[in-house]
């Protein structure tokens, strides 16, 4: 009997830690959803049409651009008369729209609506 009482007194401690760990489980849950987001396929991702629409609307809203000239096939410098600095500004505006950070090496290559659309569509972190 004395043994049982002693044991019960000890049992109480592990029970408390158990409820604590159960509480802590709430955190990894939200973490796992962010990890899931990493691996998300295009199912819950942007559709190509959405990407095209949003890229075009960002480009159209650029002050130096005539919105009527903008189509998915336009080249920023050849067709819209922009310079390389404007090109940087457009890519930066797209970064903000889709909550991305495009590294310099990639950003230098994005010189047309088509390439911008391809890059963003294939980017796993592009935000809906």
């Amino acid at each position: 009997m004395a043994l049982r009482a002693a044991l019960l007194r000890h049992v109480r401690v592990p029970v408390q830690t158990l409820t604590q760990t159960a509480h802590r489980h709430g955190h990894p849950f939200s973490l796992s959803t962010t990890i899931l987001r990493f691996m998300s396929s295009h199912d819950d991702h942007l559709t190509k049409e959405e990407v095209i629409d949003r890229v075009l609307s960002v480009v159209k809203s650029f002050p130096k651009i005539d919105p009527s000239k903008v189509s998915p096939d336009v080249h920023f410098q050849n067709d819209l008369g922009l310079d390389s600095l404007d090109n940087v500004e457009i890519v930066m505006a797209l970064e903000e729209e889709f909550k991305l950070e495009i590294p310099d090496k990639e950003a230098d290559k994005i010189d047309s609506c088509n390439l911008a659309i391809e890059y963003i569509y294939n980017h796993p972190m592009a935000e809906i």
Partner: protein
Amino acid sequence: MAPSGGPRLSGLQKQVLSLYRGFLRAARLKSLEDRKKIESLVSAEFRRNAKQIDHKNFLHIEYLLRRGKKQLDQLKSPCTVGLSSINVTLPQTQHTRP
């Protein structure tokens, strides 16, 4: 992914564009008002230099790149806002003033 035509960029041009991008990124971290000021000043400064400086004057362009990088480092400091960043990004006007 290859660029779809248009002018090829030289190494020096890439550095200039990267610096420009750096300034715009740094400006994003400031208040909206400061950001607008910084963006318009930086944009004007880069465009002015692009027009005025001989594209083959590599020494001068490299000098401006180094100076720009230092100014960008100052701008990145969270203490640098508004007016101080304007002075930082427009040293040309400081030089001409007596």
